[in-house]
């Protein structure tokens, strides 16, 4: 069964066609890489899938359900989690509070007007478990503004995982990281459960190609090549449009 299906998806800003007639399927548990040069429309595609942007044309189906008209928060409730290319963390809060806030988003307890957020042992324990997964448990009570860039990148992933998503969208999770930090995040990505469907935008080919089952190559908002990793790498259009860069 497909976890995500895009049908003739298009997005225009006035006369500028950012995404044009993109259609592809992502199967459950698949690792899908979105490739393309700068300005190809990769992040716009993520924004359309997550619900930050409404499509000009076409549909988005999540596990068979058309979610094209749903707002972002309701798509999140249906299992879409994402990270951002530009970090969007609560920098004045502690690391664990960021994760607790992310966990709360999927429960009705987010509407609770009394009782301290920090006193919820169940949420704190589950947040610690996630922080252990991303190797940030040692700075759980540190303020985010006092953490390193690499730690913040991992916290981005931790927050998305705290949502317990069915489909995880990773927007350049290795951007700006040192070689050592990249290794850590790569290990984290490879350890993600196979039940989770992952779509990733990434320019680090060493990590990205090792991670992907299938690849979709975008150019000027259009789907240029779609296929298995080996098929796409072998395709001359890939070399011409992207790998030659």
């Amino acid at each position, binding site marked *: 069964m497909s976890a995500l299906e895009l049908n003739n998806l298009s997005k225009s800003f006035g006369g500028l066609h950012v995404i044009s007639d993109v259609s592809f399927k992502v199967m459950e548990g698949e690792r899908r890489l979105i490739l393309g040069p700068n300005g190809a429309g990769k992040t716009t595609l993520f924004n359309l899938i*997550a*619900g*930050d942007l409404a499509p000009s044309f076409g549909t988005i189906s999540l596990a068979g359900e058309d979610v094209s008209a749903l*707002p*972002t*928060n309701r798509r*999140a*409730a249906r299992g879409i*989690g*994402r990270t*951002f290319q530009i970090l*969007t*963390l*609560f*920098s*004045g809060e502690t690391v664990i*509070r960021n994760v607790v*806030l*992310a966990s*709360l*988003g*999927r429960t009705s*307890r*987010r*509407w*609770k*007007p*009394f*009782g*301290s*957020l*920090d006193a*919820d042992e169940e949420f704190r324990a589950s947040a610690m478990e996630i922080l252990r997964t991303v190797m940030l448990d040692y700075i759980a009570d540190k303020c985010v*503004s006092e953490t390193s860039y690499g730690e913040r990148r991992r916290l981005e992933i931790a*927050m998305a995982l705290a*949502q317990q998503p069915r489909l995880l969208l990773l927007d350049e999770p290795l951007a700006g990281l040192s070689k050592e930090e990249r290794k850590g995040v790569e290990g984290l990505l490879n350890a993600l459960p196979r039940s989770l469907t992952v779509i990733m935008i990434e320019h680090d080919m060493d990590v990205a190609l090792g991670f992907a089952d299938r690849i979709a190559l975008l150019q000027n908002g259009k789907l240029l090549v779609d296929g298995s990793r080996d098929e796409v790498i072998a395709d001359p259009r890939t070399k011409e449009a992207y790998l030659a860069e």
Partner: protein
Amino acid sequence: MKTVGIIFITAIACILPFLLPGNFYLGIATQILVYGLFAVSVNTLAGYGGMVSLGHAGFLGIAAYAYAVTSGTYGFSPWIAVGAALLIGTAAAAVFGLIALRTSGLSFLMITLALGQIVWGVAFRYTDLTNGDNGISLGRASVISADPLTLYYVCLAVLALVMVLLAAFIRSPLGAAIKGVRDQPRRMSTLGYNTWAIRYVAYLVSGFVATVSGILYVQIFQFISPHALSLTVSSEAVLMVIAGGIGTLFGPLLGAGVVVLLKNVASAYTDRWPTLLGCIFLFIIIAMPEGLLPGSKRILAGMIGSFRKGAAPSASLQPTSRAR
């Protein structure tokens, strides 16, 4: 340390009437409590919700008029008037929130200004109900108490109760969500939060607190006129919040203290008290851009740090990046 400070200030507030020289100063102290509560309502929206309103005096005024009409004009008991004012003020916040929250940022500021001016216009022109520019005066029987000392303690008790509830609310998951939507609305949507609904809750809570302050306002002045709903009153509340420390629990109370004292005490000595208020506000913005309360904490911490190091106490007047 914080708890000790709160207990100390509460104790001072409790014995203050016996330290003041007369009813004039007791009246000013009571005004500080009422305007402080009003500033707290503006801070709930602006400081925690990130939405600055220039029409909040509308809620204060609606509640005060609702009380005055129910109790004064129609002669119902003060307690029924309190219930009616709470209901009408909060209902107004519920309706205005639906309109104002269609926008954000500068547009939100302008739409709240417009809503506030509409309420002011109605109070000014609907003379059959509001008595227009002459306002409504209440007799001693129409208020909960006309005794200045009783009124002071009633206002203090209400303020203390609201502050305790608000402190718990801000620490709660919903309070954390309100601050989250202020800081990272896009992230919050992605995490499954309905950002519009969360902003609406913040607006309702803020409107409710402003309503309570309106009920207290009409108790202490025993009079309500369109001036109470004016843009000046809304702007002063924003000034109190910024001066005291936006997004802090007690900062707005400090800001209210500064503004009310200047208005009442300085105006007795000079007609140019607004100039003095402007100069003080400028000083606060330059020396403590984060507000009086966080700014004083920073300077005090700097002095203590210098003292501990054995150096001469010299606090920096520049805020830290985090304080900004």
